[in-house]
């Protein structure tokens, strides 16, 4: 933790610089989504755009966490809480996905063999 006057003054400069970096990455995010020359993969949105967009967002998020939220120099307990919350969030993603395996509420789609993700009384799941 920056506590001396000199350290805080130094840190303030860093905060300003990080702010500008975040502005730059924001413009970059919009550019890769809208400028054709920066559109990788097929034209329009595809998985490559998703990966690039989320990668930039992750870089931005890391900067906010490391610098603004001081995670570059924190005590052990904070890291523990943070990591546990991430693990729990991943568990929640898995839990949501698991719901789609429920044959009672999530059956087949309009066509035979198709899984729509929504219960369709006209085409119930075969036992």
């Amino acid at each position: 933790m920056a506590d001396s006057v000199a350290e805080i003054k130094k840190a303030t400069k860093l905060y300003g610089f990080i702010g500008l970096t975040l502005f730059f990455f924001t413009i970059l995010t919009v550019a890769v989504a809208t400028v054709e020359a920066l559109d990788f993969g097929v034209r329009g949105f595809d998985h490559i755009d998703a990966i690039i967009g989320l990668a930039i967002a992750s870089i931005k998020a890391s900067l906010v966490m490391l610098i603004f939220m001081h995670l570059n120099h924190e005590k052990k307990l904070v890291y523990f809480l943070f990591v546990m919350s991430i693990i729990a969030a991943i568990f929640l993603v898995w839990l949501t996905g698991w719901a789609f395996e429920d044959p009672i509420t999530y059956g087949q789609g309009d066509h035979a063999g198709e899984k729509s993700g929504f219960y369709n009384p006209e085409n119930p799941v075969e036992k």
Partner: protein
Amino acid sequence: MEIPFTVTARKDTGLYNSKVGIWLFLASEVMLFGGLFSGYVFLRVYADYPWPERVLPVVPGLINTFILIGSSVTVVFAWAALKLRKWNQFRIFMLITLTCAAVFMVLKGIEYKAKWGHQAVRMDDFVILEGHTHPAGIDADGNVFHVGGHASVEDHSDGPHYIAAKTDDAHGGDHHAEHGPAVKDFRTNVVVFDANELVINLETYHEGVIGGILEQSEKANSANWTLVQPYVGRETAREDEQIILSAGAKLSLENLAKAREVYLAAKANDSKVRTKQLSDAWAKVKDIPGNKERPNHELVQDENFKINEDFDQFLVSPTSTVTFQTDEPITFVLKPREVRESAESALLADGSSLNGQLNTEASAIEMAADAIDFTFVAQRAEEKGVDPLAAVEKTWIIQNNPQVAAIWKAHTEKIAKLEEELLEKYGTDKQGNPKRVPTEKERYRITWQELVNYGEGNEEKGVFSGFAGPDHTKDYAKHFPEVLVPREEVNLETKFTPRWNTYYAIYFLITGLHGLHVIGGAIVLGYFLFFGKKMYLNNPEHLANRVEVGGLFWHFVDLVWIFLFPVLYLM
């Protein structure tokens, strides 16, 4: 009581207490938004309709991103100023932070308002029309007319529960002069139904719904609703049947309540009898040696599991509906979301139904379309192995609206040109397929900018004003085609609310929750700004720690938006 470790760190954790507290809270927040993001992913992956990709106006979202990042910087500056014991500097940075929060919420409000005032119509053939509906009315002779034109685009969604025919001067005087003073106004986006029969489900009817029907019936001043068949009933099979409501009884909530009471008592009696029959059957089948150990699902299949039908004599089997009729049909004006209509009946939200005749002319939706979307048509056609372009040509709107047909023609020509340009620019791959082709959205969705371009005969006009979407009060709105859609061709119509599709449901859920976090954070930071002076003079380090903790929450709110912006606006 003195709270310990607000300034100095605890030895075991190395942290002052409120920091542990805020990190515990942030951990719960990570899980909350993590769960919502995973909900978004699954909704998108399993969507059975073309996901609305990059449909939100990017500019407000982009400005909001800058605002939140900027406020994250100023909040950490404010904390640093406190650490350096510069009170005035702290106040300035905190004030900027709060201003950012306010601007963020105002922009969010503009964005939401544009959605809530924007009409979407999905037709039975999966064509989606977006735009604004026009007011219409019934003149003194009972004829329906539409106001039309782009002069009147105000939103009329704030009407009463049932939009009864009104006689006030709500839409300005123009059409009143033409049609005389006794004009009854309503929106075009209503279901007008002439009913002479009302079937009420005694178990599910809702007093609000029936009350609305009674209210409109009274206003119509026509003949009253009278019961067709007497309602006879008894509470148990031992009693004699009694006439609860005699034929010709008037429709009133009191009469319905009387009938409901007897019906529910009879139904409860029947439930008891059925339960007795079942428990009797279970007891008998379980008594057979060896059966106690067998699982229940096997016992149900057992030949000895028999319902004793002698008990049936104790069943009342009450009639669940009562039917009322009028001599003269009454015209009802209903909100589309409160009714499921067909040509001869209108099913109300509580399971009651009006029978009669749908007024197709008055129920038609007239709108100025600012987007025509065939992507759902194309998706359905491809699923069925039909040529998407042929499917689009066969849609009702292309067949019946020459203006839209002409726009579609201009659009297909533009796409053909774009295909050529892309082929020229990017060439073909090894298999000879073009490396880049127009997207599905480009092919099948005609945006409001394109509508203006086609209208002006200028294919490449640049950016238009319209901060949060198309603005129907602007001059360019004259190029939005007027479409009159018959009610029987409409599958679903709604404003751009969570009802429209799962995308808008999750959009409003996550951004709304995020907005609440912005407001909550601003309140806490505002408290430090306006009520922190005393603490600053007493113990500046204590206030600095509080601001750091409030700032941590603020950074988290920023963090969520950093992901929300690309996910909702750009993907």
